[in-house]
């Protein structure tokens, strides 16, 4: 379904204009994101696939920017069924080009929509006008040998290969914001007389719109064509059609093309930096999207007391305090350097009055029993944290967490693949109880089952929880959901528990 282009020159953009968007998401976070776009943006036509969530929403850039469980946000241009795969490479490349090639006016409309959404207000119309003229000038036969050679060099340079097939977004290195340069360019070009002839081809090159194609391809298509070839073909076609200049380093516009067995998608990222890069976090620890997702499971209400007894750099507390500011947050850690980092983060985020820090051990918390409504923690694992290699520490940790938690309170933990493996009964029960278990990261069925906010634990959750906790008597912590998430290179599991009273209710 192609996005109908909005008319340019609509003046001030009202946030009531609906648009079709999609976000990339770390694997496992799609259901969280689907829920978030509905709740935060009133989104409709929400469609989840592995790694992406599509939706329609009438939202301005300020609101879109607030999405917390998404990696990057794109304006959706094209979403078609997967490209037919044949042995005929030429034919396939032709089909791919057809995906992207449109009349120049289509692109101008899209660009003006995109500019409004990015917050490039005002001059969009003038720029569109001038760009139309620039396009026409180019296609009216500027091709001399010099510019042809230039084009070929650009074509070699611009292809950006992103062959990331597996889970997790690779974080694009933050680029210099060049909106200033953009404006200088457009202001100069608007001074150009809008006459047809007599212009300098070199000047034209400098002032034309620059772009980059980011192409990802996987599945059957990847066996015939590489994303590099596809990106190059698309780029050449766009240069020819629109007269744009290819720029790998710092383009005005990035065009994102994703071809796989599920669909063919073309989009334009709305913001240069991924949404997952938070401007309020100075030093990143756990991926912010995962931290937010964990906090969203804890059921934080106004006046709640929330504890992270192994807070590290405080990422979970920061995400929670930003989203649910009407609660009180406490963080504890035994490491001075981590606490200093957390303190720096808290000050950068301006959350000093919301988050308290303690130097304390999770095995002996200096906190009264039943004093907290929620305990949320990323259990450190891996070679970096030697003390955690011994999984026997886990019951000690859980004991203290359970003690400080009030009846009815929630525990949300992030556990590694390894920690899970160490508890044999855990993975066995997960597989046998439910085929769509999150244990093997099969995310197709998981979105439907993943968000069980209230207590009706499925047999899956019971099996998992009981074997995990049965070695010690944690009868009062009842499992209430398991969610597999990707942390980029590794997978991890969010486990939620609820504390029940001795009578077994809360």
């Amino acid at each position, binding site marked *: 379904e192609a996005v109908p282009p909005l008319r340019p020159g609509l003046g001030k953009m009202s946030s009531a204009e609906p648009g079709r968007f999609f976000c990339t998401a770390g694997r496992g976070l799609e259901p969280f994101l689907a829920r978030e776009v509905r709740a935060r943006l009133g989104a409709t036509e929400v469609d989840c696939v592995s790694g992406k969530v599509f939706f329609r929403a009438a939202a301005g850039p300020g609101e879109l920017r607030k999405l917390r469980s998404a990696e990057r946000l794109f304006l959706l241009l094209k979403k078609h069924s997967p490209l037919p795969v044949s042995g005929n490479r030429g034919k396939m490349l032709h089909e791919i080009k057809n995906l992207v090639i449109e009349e120049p006016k289509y692109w101008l409309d899209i660009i003006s929509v995109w500019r409004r959404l990015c917050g490039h207000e005002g001059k969009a119309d003038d720029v569109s006008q001038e760009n139309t003229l620039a396009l026409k000038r180019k296609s009216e036969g500027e091709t001399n040998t010099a510019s042809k050679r230039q084009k070929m060099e650009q074509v070699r340079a611009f292809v950006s290969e992103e062959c990331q097939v597996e889970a997790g977004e690779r974080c694009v290195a933050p680029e210099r914001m060049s909106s200033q340069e953009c404006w200088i360019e457009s202001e100069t070009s608007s001074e150009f007389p809008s006459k047809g002839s007599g212009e300098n081809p070199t000047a034209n090159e400098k002032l034309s719109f620059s772009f980059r194609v980011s192409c990802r391809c996987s599945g059957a298509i990847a066996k015939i064509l590489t994303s590099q070839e596809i990106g190059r073909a698309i780029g050449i076609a766009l240069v020819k059609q629109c007269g744009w200049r290819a720029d790998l380093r710092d383009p005005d516009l990035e065009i994102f093309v994703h071809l796989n067995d599920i669909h063919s998608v073309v989009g334009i990222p709305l913001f240069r930096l991924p949404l997952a890069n938070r401007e309020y976090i100075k030093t990143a620890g756990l991926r912010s999207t995962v931290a937010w997702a964990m906090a969203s499971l804890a059921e934080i209400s106004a006046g709640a007391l929330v504890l992270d007894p192994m807070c590290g750099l405080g990422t979970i507390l920061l995400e929670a305090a930003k989203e649910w500011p009407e609660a009180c947050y406490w963080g504890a850690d035994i490491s001075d350097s981590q606490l200093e980092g957390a303190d720096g983060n808290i000050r950068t985020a301006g959350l*000093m009055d919301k988050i308290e820090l*303690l*130097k304390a051990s999770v095995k002996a918390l200096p906190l009264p029993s039943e004093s907290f409504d929620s305990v949320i923690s990323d259990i450190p694992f891996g070679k970096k944290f030697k003390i955690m290699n011994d999984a026997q520490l886990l019951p000690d940790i859980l004991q203290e967490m359970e003690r400080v938690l009030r009846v009815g309170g929630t525990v949300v933990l992030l556990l590694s693949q390894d920690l899970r493996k160490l508890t044999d009964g855990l993975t066995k029960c997960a597989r046998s109880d439910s085929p769509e278990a999150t244990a093997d990261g099969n995310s197709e069925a998981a979105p439907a089952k993943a968000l069980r906010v209230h207590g009706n634990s499925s047999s899956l959750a019971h099996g998992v929880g009981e074997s995990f906790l049965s070695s010690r008597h944690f009868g009062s912590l009842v499992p209430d959901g398991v969610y597999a998430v990707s942390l980029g290179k590794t997978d991890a599991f969010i486990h939620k528990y609820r504390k029940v009273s001795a009578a077994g209710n809360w």
Partner: protein
Amino acid sequence: KLGHPSELPPEPVPNYEADEEFLRRLHHVLLEVEVLEGSLQCPDSGRRFPISKGVPNMLLTEDEA
């Protein structure tokens, strides 16, 4: 004990609820002053827990745990 002896009386004066000035100073001490360096003292044991850069160190020693 927080270094504001001149501002606060040692005990609440009678009818302190109506004393705007007193309430303002009390609010400041309770909610706006952040202890960066100092200590917390356990009222039962008298054990002091040092505060450094605003963070109290509540780790127990081997014997205490």
